[in-house]
């Protein structure tokens, strides 16, 4: 039984096998339509974004050479933050998905691209393209789901350590690129035993990550500050700020993609022998969109069209907007819920879920202004008591 099917309101109960198959066929046709019409305009689009990003980054870094003047610091930091966001989201993420491989330009290709990020693109491609996109929202398989350090579903047993989950999540957001590097390396698993620690493949990958981080740090925290001469410290602070802004932004966007309330998660067993249609269905139920302006879509790397991106990860990102209405229409026709809301709503919803799951099941929902003292006492007992106490109090609820 899947996590889905256990629910009283199983969102796919009304679909027959034939429905699921025809969903698959319709989506295949939609994908083919875009594939067949890729051309000059798309190529010009990605080249223009790259051109703008490079000029913005160069310009911002030039302004930051004079960053001891506050207006220069503010302007340069803003520009660099935007440049780094563009580079990671609309450019890096999408190129590394192979969205632009069809152009056969070796300079814009998933096998040659390297990005402004702690994790080397080669390792990220494995954990992201293969693990996350294949096993989307499958608990225990998809590391994007809580990055292995968070409680992401009611079915995961609650332990007191999860009370700190909102703090972890915020720290992870600030230093997101290192969090990603760590989970691309599967640090938790690989550091656990001496045997795994000594594995030559793991060691080689670890070295590659450290080399990449050293280069990145040398650039942002040594070379550019040195070039700024008397503005050394302000430039260093500006680069640090831009990295944190980029990290917070990309963390928020990615959290919005799979974590808002109502987005489904799946059990490992539920994906055995999954058909193409069922795979599509899992992507549809496991993703959420962000609505907003064109600029917002570009800044999220079009991950605001998370549903479309998860259905068709290798279509050029500039085309998601045009197929979104067709995908939504398909959701409507098959009685499925198309999750879409503004950025603040989705971020709020995702954080609400983080908070809710950091507490024992049902605790947040049962808490009202009137019963706060009683609830706090219960939480205290569950936190300090053993597993037995927790089970008793949980079952009593």
């Amino acid at each position, binding site marked *: 039984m899947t996590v889905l099917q256990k629910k009283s309101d199983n969102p796919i109960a009304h679909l027959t096998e034939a429905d699921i198959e025809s969903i698959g066929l319709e989506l295949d046709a939609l994908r083919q339509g875009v594939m067949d019409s890729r051309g000059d305009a798309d190529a010009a689009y990605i080249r223009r974004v790259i051109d703008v990003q490079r000029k913005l980054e160069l310009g911002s870094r030039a302004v930051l050479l004079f960053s001891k003047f506050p207006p220069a610091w503010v302007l340069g930091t803003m520009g660099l933050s935007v440049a780094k966001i563009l580079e990671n989201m609309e450019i890096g993420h999408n190129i590394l998905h192979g969205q632009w491989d*069809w152009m056969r330009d070796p300079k814009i290709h998933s*096998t040659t691209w390297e990005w402004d990020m702690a994790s080397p693109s080669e390792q990220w491609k494995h954990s992201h393209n293969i693990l996350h996109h294949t096993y989307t929202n499958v608990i225990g398989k998809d590391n994007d789901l809580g990055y292995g350090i968070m409680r992401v579903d009611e079915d995961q047993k609650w332990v007191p350590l999860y009370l700190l989950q909102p703090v972890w999540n915020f720290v992870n957001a600030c230093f997101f690129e290192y969090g990603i590097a760590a989970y691309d390396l599967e640090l938790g698993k690989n550091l656990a035993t001496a045997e795994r620690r000594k594995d030559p493949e793991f060691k080689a990958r670890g070295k590659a990550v450290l080399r990449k981080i050293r280069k990145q740090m040398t*650039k942002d925290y040594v070379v550019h500050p040195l070039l700024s001469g008397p503005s050394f410290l302000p430039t260093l602070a500006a680069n640090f700020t831009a990295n944190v802004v980029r990290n917070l932004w990309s963390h928020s966007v990615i959290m919005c993609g799979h974590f808002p309330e109502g987005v489904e998660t799946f059990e490992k067993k539920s994906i055995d022998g999954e058909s193409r249609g069922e795979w599509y269905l899992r992507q549809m139920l496991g993703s959420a969109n962000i609505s907003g302006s064109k600029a917002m879509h570009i800044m999220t790397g079009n991950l605001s069209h998370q549903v479309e991106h998860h259905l068709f990860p290798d279509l050029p990102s500039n085309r998601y907007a045009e197929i979104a209405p067709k995908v939504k229409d398909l959701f409507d026709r098959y009685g499925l819920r198309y999750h879409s809301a503004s950025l603040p709503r989705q971020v709020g919803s995702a954080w609400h879920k983080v908070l809710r799951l950091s507490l024992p099941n049902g605790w947040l929902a049962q808490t009202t202004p009137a019963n706060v003292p009683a609830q706090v006492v219960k939480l205290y007992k569950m936190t300090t008591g053993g597993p037995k106490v927790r089970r008793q109090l949980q079952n009593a609820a």
Partner: protein
Amino acid sequence: MTATVSRPSSARPVLGKLRDRVVKVAELVTTPLLPADYLDLVDPLRSGAALRGRIEEVRPETRDAATIVIRPGRDWLPHTPGQYVRIGIDVDGVRQWRAYSITSVLGRADGCFTITVKAIPGGKVSNHLVRRARSGTIVQLDQATGDFVLPAQRPEKCLFVTAGSGVTPVMGILRNHVAEHDDVVVVHSAPTAEDVIFGAELRELARTGQIRLVERHTETAGLLDAAALAELVPDLAERSTWACGPVGMLEALEEHWAAAGIAEQLYTERFRPRVLVTGEGGTVSFARSSRSLEVDGATPILDAAEEAGLLMPSGCRMGICYGCVLPLREGAVRDLRTGEVTTAAPGDGVLIQTCISAAAGACDIDH
């Protein structure tokens, strides 16, 4: 792009070291990109950049042929007349590489060279170049190459046999070297007089006595065969001959020359390999790219892989330059020109030319 390119060491060691250090710092500044990625925004034709060119002008020659004037990057080396250049141009957003003969005179004052392209029916790149290419477009280039050139020891009597766009390398030779020869015969075949690329220029050369020109208009006179040629040029056995045109014509000429025992006096230039045999096809896997494709027995592995979005090394695309060679770790491929099957057992790593090899069963290619 993190690949670091090795640089030629400078003759002056101190300066060279200083330069290396500057480059290193520049790389620290631009990582994970390379300094070149930023310099390309400003000057894609600069020295040290990947070799590129800019289309300066597209000049119609006939109803379906045009001359493209290209300003090459600063690292361009002068070509030898008769040679071709490989050009990578984006057509409908996809980079396509093709080889075209260079038709210009050496040492043009403006530093440009020209290619002359005939739009062939269904030809993706040729139609784009003739009908849609615009000046200002940046194209990718390789250095000129090819051995369809005059030898250092110049022959006394020359014969050039061309058909259609096969006249282009010959025009490259004539424009540069016609004055050095007293006895040059050009036999050119085209559907009608209007279809003769460089028609006016060739007729002018003939009028001024620099060449003897025989035009064969196939719509009225039929295809040129070796027997007809022997009638038109009775002394062809005394001549060194350069021939360029459709595969059928070249093969007829090769047979005729071989039969006459003068095969070594004939130089031919092909633009396309001749597909002889096709086979059964199979699954081709590219281990390092984590991709595997179903490929039929008539499609070169290079084309199939590129179609699937893989970045493949490539060159002439007709089995000559060995620019596309990759190790076949296991499996069987068929040479599309000869039908010959090459097999590899695990560990062999047999080098195959992907541009003229089709799958003849499952293949595991190291790429």
